[in-house]
């Protein structure tokens, strides 16, 4: 089956405009007859459900959390990009588009990315109208900051809680539609299966997580807004409940999985402190604007950071990348940290960490502040106090969080940081209309693969989630549903629903009947270890081949030895987790296959065999300038389809930050 991305013809700048003015529409009376199911209530899901509800569709929204407001979009710290050019620094739709394609290491679709940049400005307008309290200047206008090493200030933010504020905005819009009766909300419900009738997605089987009951829900279309799958690594910055199950079920029903191996490892996270670690916490990328990253020059140096003199420190990013220094993109910074630790220069008890040091910034800000106050002869202690106050104002909440978790005072001793899995650029393959290869089944936000290529730029995830939900799906949905207005709601006693429910129920029964000895958590940890070691920041053919075998063995072990206490028909978090881990195991195998297939290094995907002599990533544009879309063909059987990436406007070049 050739993949048709359905990118509209015409020049880049007019593709979306043309699409919007020529797509089919559904009249209001018909919209009321059309039912849409939305899975997940993060930025993409909540904004889509709210917008579709406002338009008059009958929407059912599902989330596994106790409230739609808890979706993990809420944890995003830094900000949201938009090509507003409010700072008059030369930003434009084209520049945002260009930065995103380049940052993604030329593995994203031009058409999609341009549309993303184009609607970005409307997102800010919409959010402000909803009452999202973005940071403002004294004049009352919106404030911006630069982020992730871009040359313009296009990031809108609300302190270090931008994701929370945007999600609350979308959540409120969603709850408004609930109160108006346009959206029915199902909290503590998990999607267990996509129901297809005549090849079209027509509903889902959901499980009420409180009672354990299975429910059948019909929809003319199904939207998956279920987020990313970083938890396949066990340890990640994702929430504990973040999972791939909805997307994986869709994959097994025929939705291709795009670029599964593209994982973003964020360079500045609080390092693992022991085997008990259940998740990793991100320290916003903005810290790299002021912090200096270093390790001791001597291997296995056990002195305290403050006892190591300046000349015995290796500021390795500044050394290797003099042009960008500590501000190199995420993938580059992460790999460099790993390289130093692997060589034995790591710090802290685990030796798997590097220092992020604010001492220089504190003194620099302190001096500026002292001069401002006319204290030209201030001693070091006074300068330090003044500097600490400035740093506190900029990063206070992050420093506080660091101290809560580690018990160390980052004003006095350098932070210890290490890279951690953060975001997955891969996801369900979708066309320009966000439809997967299953008609009627869509994927939005992090759940799809479309806009970030092989590496996502900071502050772009929020932008994409909201772009898909507020501004893309309302149009593309209509274009497809216009042909469906004669389709009456299909009763859920249809054979397809009955069969799907039985399959789900059989699977649950099977899980419960194993009654083995090993906990779900233990399997998840094992999977995470394999993935992190062999399909993590650096990958090679040998490791990936081993990983595939190990994961297959783990899968067998799981299905013969997992122990799930409790019953089916009750609130049973262990059972919920078991279903998710079972899917992660299968996904892990596919990720390794994809990583093995891609014989190049690009963005977050670093194959050790493909690097320049000085250790930088080396793309193979002639061979791998395509989206790897995998089709499920049965257990451990996946067929690769390729969607060639055509760059009409931006011409791929080797990224250099030296």
């Amino acid at each position, binding site marked *: 089956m050739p993949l048709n991305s359905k990118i509209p013809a015409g020049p880049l700048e007019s593709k979306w405009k043309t699409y919007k003015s020529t797509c089919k529409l559904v009249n209001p009376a018909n919209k009321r007859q059309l039912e849409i199911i939305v899975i997940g209530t993060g930025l993409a899901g909540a904004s889509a459900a709210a917008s579709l509800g406002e338009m008059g569709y009958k929407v059912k929204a599902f989330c596994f959390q106790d409230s739609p407001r808890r979706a993990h979009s809420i944890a995003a710290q830094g900000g949201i990009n938009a090509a507003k050019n409010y700072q008059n620094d030369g930003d434009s739709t084209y520049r945002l588009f260009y930065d995103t394609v380049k940052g993604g290491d030329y593995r994203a679709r031009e058409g999609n990315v341009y549309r993303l940049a184009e609607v970005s400005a409307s997102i800010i307008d919409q959010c402000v109208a909803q009452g999202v309290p973005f940071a403002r200047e004294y*004049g009352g206008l919106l404030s911006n900051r630069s982020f992730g090493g871009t040359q313009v200030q296009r990031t809108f933010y609300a302190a270090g809680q931008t994701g929370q504020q945007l999600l609350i905005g979308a959540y409120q819009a969603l709850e408004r539609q609930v109160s108006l009766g346009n959206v029915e909300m199902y909290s503590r419900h998990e999607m267990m299966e996509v129901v297809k009738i005549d090849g079209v997605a027509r509903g889902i089987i959901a499980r009420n997580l409180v009672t354990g009951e299975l429910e059948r829900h019909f929809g003319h279309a199904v939207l998956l807004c279920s987020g990313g799958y970083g938890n396949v690594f066990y340890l990640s910055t994702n929430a504990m409940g973040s999972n791939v199950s909805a997307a994986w079920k869709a994959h097994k029903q025929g939705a291709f999985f795009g670029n599964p191996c593209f994982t973003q490892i964020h360079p500045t996270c609080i390092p693992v402190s022991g085997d008990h670690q259940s998740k990793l916490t991100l320290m916003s990328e903005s810290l790299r604007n002021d912090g200096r990253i270093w390790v001791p020059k001597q291997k296995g140096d056990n002195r305290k950071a403050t006892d190591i003199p300046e000349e015995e420190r290796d500021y390795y990013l500044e050394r290797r990348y003099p042009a960008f220094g500590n501000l190199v993109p995420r993938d580059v910074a992460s790999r460099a940290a790993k390289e130093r630790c692997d060589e034995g220069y790591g710090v802290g008890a685990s030796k798997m960490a590097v220092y992020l040091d604010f001492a220089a910034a504190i003194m620099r800000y302190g001096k500026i502040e002292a001069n401002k106050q006319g204290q030209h002869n201030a001693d070091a202690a006074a300068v330090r106090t003044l500097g600490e106050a400035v740093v506190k104002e900029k990063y206070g909440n992050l420093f506080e969080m660091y101290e809560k978790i580690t018990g160390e005072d980052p004003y006095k001793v350098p932070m210890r940081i290490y890279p951690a899995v953060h975001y997955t650029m891969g996801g369900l393959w979708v066309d320009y209309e966000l439809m997967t290869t299953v008609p009627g089944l869509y994927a939005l936000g992090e759940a799809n693969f479309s806009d970030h290529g092989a590496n996502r730029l900071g502050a772009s995830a929020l932008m994409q989630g909201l772009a898909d939900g507020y501004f893309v799906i309302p149009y593309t949905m209509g274009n497809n549903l216009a042909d469906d207005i004669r389709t009456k709601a299909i009763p859920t006693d249809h054979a397809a629903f009955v069969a799907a429910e039985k399959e789900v129920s059989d699977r649950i029964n099977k899980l419960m009947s194993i009654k083995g000895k090993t906990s779900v958590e233990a399997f998840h940890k094992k999977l995470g270890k394999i993935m992190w070691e062999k399909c993590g920041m650096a990958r090679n053919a040998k490791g990936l081949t081993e990983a595939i075998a190990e994961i297959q063995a783990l899968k067998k072990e799981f299905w013969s030895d997992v122990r799930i206490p409790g019953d089916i028909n009750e609130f049973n978090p262990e059972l919920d987790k078991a279903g998710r881990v079972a899917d992660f195991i299968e996904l892990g195998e596919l990720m390794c296959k994809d990583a093995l297939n891609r014989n190049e290094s690009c963005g977050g995907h670093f194959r050790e065999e493909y690097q320049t002599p000085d250790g930088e990533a080396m793309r193979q544009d002639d061979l791998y300038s395509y989206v790897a879309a995998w089709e499920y063909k049965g257990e451990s059987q996946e067929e690769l389809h390729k969607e060639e990436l055509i760059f009409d406007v931006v011409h791929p070049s080797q990224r250099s930050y030296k």
Partner: protein
Amino acid sequence: MEHNTMNLTLKVWRQKNNKAKGGFETFNVKNISSEMSFLEMFDVLNEQLVAENKEPVAFDHDCREGICGACSMYINGRAHGPWHHNTTCQLHMREYKDGDTIVVEPWRADSFPVIKDLVVDRSAFDRIIQAGGYISVNTGNAVDANSLPIDKQKADESFAAATCIGCGACVAACPNTSAMLFVSAKVSHLALLPQGEPERQLRAVKMVEQMDTEGFGSCTNIGACEAECPKGISLENIARLNREYISAIMDGDSTGA
């Protein structure tokens, strides 16, 4: 950071479901590292229970970085435990020492019925938001974001109110099980912005009505909510809600009241 290990006694509320009668069960956990978070200590307990083929303790949690508002434990008499401005997931075990006994209960309020063990149903909060905790603007209606400058101080105050994570600690800590801090945070967030102006009065009235319908107790200005709020939402928001509510009632026309 120096760390140590400890053995602890946990007295945890167990309740099979909403209809069953609950009670405390005592557990011993060993070799808990001072570097663990409180929930990681519960992970250890649950792994131990699974190994013994017993049912693990159910508790709500998700982001484990203090922002989603899912975690909700009442620890030794304190909502989210003893640390100031803190959620359960961010409480770390260095707070405790070897041999300590820790009593863990669910949020207790009739408006937050127990689902299982430490998990409660907080959907009442969603229904309060449904009653009016929004600005009625459809997608696509918006004007340019900078067409309406907003006094920075008001924007900052609005933001401070908007940082509420909806965890319910205010209700759990309040001797009256009042939800005023939660409601007032939302009313303040929106009332302080010009965008929230058109629905300002109706919003306050409707949300308060819904709060009463849900069966939360009445505010008597005790202040335990503010003291236990992980995000430091101020009691001044309650004063503002009272002002909004009183002015809406006095100005009956626009509320239809």
